[in-house]
């Protein structure tokens, strides 16, 4: 297993909190190492803006399921129930819930599979992967199925999506969502996704929404991150590098991979990609995501110079974009 911590020869002192970070940590009741990293990543004032969003939660959003209903019709139906929607800038069929957030999970329309409750950041990876009805797609960590059902919709329920996940409980949820949303083109397999490497050069496109620390979910669930240490990020990064290598092995030549995490930690994002790109050299490259959203990835962070093409990746922040903290990068395997 590749260890990015070793690769970067990281001195974890970069996360050692300064006096300024300690003050902010006290003010926001947050782990000092996290604050130190945020200050280094974003600068003091932006880090404070980010910390201000914590605990406030995020506005809910839904993705209209065009396999079952037109978005215009859905909007009208929900308006009659006093649920008011506003279109998300980058997605014609994604909507912020402006009014009626408390009702959005309990409507008949939800049960009918007319929409999926999903943060807009999570709507981006399938959109950027942009599969066609002819594709054979692998969704590596698929459950509970938000991105899988989105892929199916983009593919017009044609082609093949292989959706894998190891969790028994989450697989049940995936199957229920597939039924609810009327999805027909998924083959779900409950397995350790690392086994999939036996299917070398099989898939035309791969979505790897990697397991992560969840640092991007802090505004929704601040408690989840408090017990973690900076070392944990590197343990997670090792797994992410391994999964991304598997994605590279199973995608066909000229095939595309979208890597995403719900984390804003560079250790789980740019560091992971930097490692993969350096290891695979000219056999893989970063592609333009083809969508104008978010801010560019880091080419330098914590005083570490990374590859300049990492700027093509996308970062989303709750204080800037109103979404979860999120990272997305599109890669192409060179033939």
């Amino acid at each position, binding site marked *: 297993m590749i260890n990015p911590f070793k690769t970067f020869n990281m001195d974890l002192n970069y996360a050692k909190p300064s006096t300024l970070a300690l003050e902010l940590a006290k003010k926001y009741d947050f782990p000092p190492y996290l604050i130190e990293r945020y200050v280094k990543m974003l600068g003091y004032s932006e880090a404070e803006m980010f910390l201000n969003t914590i605990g406030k939660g995020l506005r809910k959003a839904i993705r209209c399921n065009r396999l079952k209903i037109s978005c215009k019709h859905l909007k009208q139906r929900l308006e009659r129930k006093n649920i008011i929607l506003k279109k998300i800038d980058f997605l014609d069929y994604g909507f912020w819930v402006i009014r009626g957030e408390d009702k959005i999970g309990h409507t*008949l329309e939800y*049960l009918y599979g007319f929409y999926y409750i999903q943060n807009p950041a999570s709507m981006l990876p399938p959109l950027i992967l942009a599969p066609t009805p002819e594709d054979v797609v692998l969704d590596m960590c698929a459950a509970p199925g938000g991105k899988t059902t989105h892929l199916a919709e983009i593919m017009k329920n044609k082609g093949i999506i292989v959706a894998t996940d190891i969790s028994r409980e989450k697989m*049940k949820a995936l*199957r229920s969502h597939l*039924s609810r949303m009327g999805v027909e*083109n998924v*083959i779900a*397999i*409950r397995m350790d996704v690392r086994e999939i490497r*036996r299917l070398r050069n099989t898939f035309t496109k791969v979505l790897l929404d990697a397991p992560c620390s969840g640092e991007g979910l802090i505004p929704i669930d601040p408690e989840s991150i408090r017990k973690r240490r900076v070392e944990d990020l590197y343990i997670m990064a090792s797994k992410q590098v391994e999964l991304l290598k598997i994605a590279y092995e199973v995608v066909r030549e000229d095939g595309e991979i979208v890597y995403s995490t719900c984390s804003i930690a560079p250790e789980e994002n740019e560091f992971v990609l930097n490692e993969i790109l350096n290891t695979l050299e000219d056999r893989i490259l970063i592609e333009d995501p083809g969508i104008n959203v978010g801010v560019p990835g880091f080419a330098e962070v914590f005083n570490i110079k990374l590859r300049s093409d990492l700027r093509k990746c996308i970062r989303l922040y709750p204080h800037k974009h109103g979404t979860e903290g999120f990272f997305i990068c599109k890669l192409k395997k060179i033939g």
Partner: protein
Amino acid sequence: MDSIVFAPMPSKMQDKVFATLVQMFGRRNVRLFFKNRKLLITKGGPRHEVFAVTNEQFNFIFNKIKAVLGREPYCAGVFVGIYGKKFKPSLDICEKLFKIAKRNAIMINEQAAILFSYGRDVMLKSITKVYEPLHEVVVVVDPQENVVGLCKLIVKNLNKTLCNECIVCENIIDKGWYLRKGH
């Protein structure tokens, strides 16, 4: 689910599945939906689940997932129902076939549709339209023809039933089941 194996469904078993669906939705409509699809049945589990997959999915399951990966799917394509002494069609397949066939269904009013989605049965007074011919198991739709679930008719003739407040169709499965229980 781990020891469960997906196998092509023997044609005799398929006949039983199609016979039930044809009774409910008509031969032409069933043919239309299952054109270019194959049936798979699960073996080794507590129940035999039936799935409809496209030829492309079928080949991928047998040539890649089983042969190379040595794995079995958890689910695939469209869940058609549970095979046993009697074949029990799934809500998924009934929804898809109703969209084509527009038969074997009852429409109920909005309020009754909400109650049905919570597991309640159907009273005669809630029915606003009948899509003849009816089978024993009928599709329940809301005023916009959205499928809410399946129910079992407990009266022989809806037109001859005089008691408005009487239950005429018992809830088998409804859309709320996805939230309450799930697969």
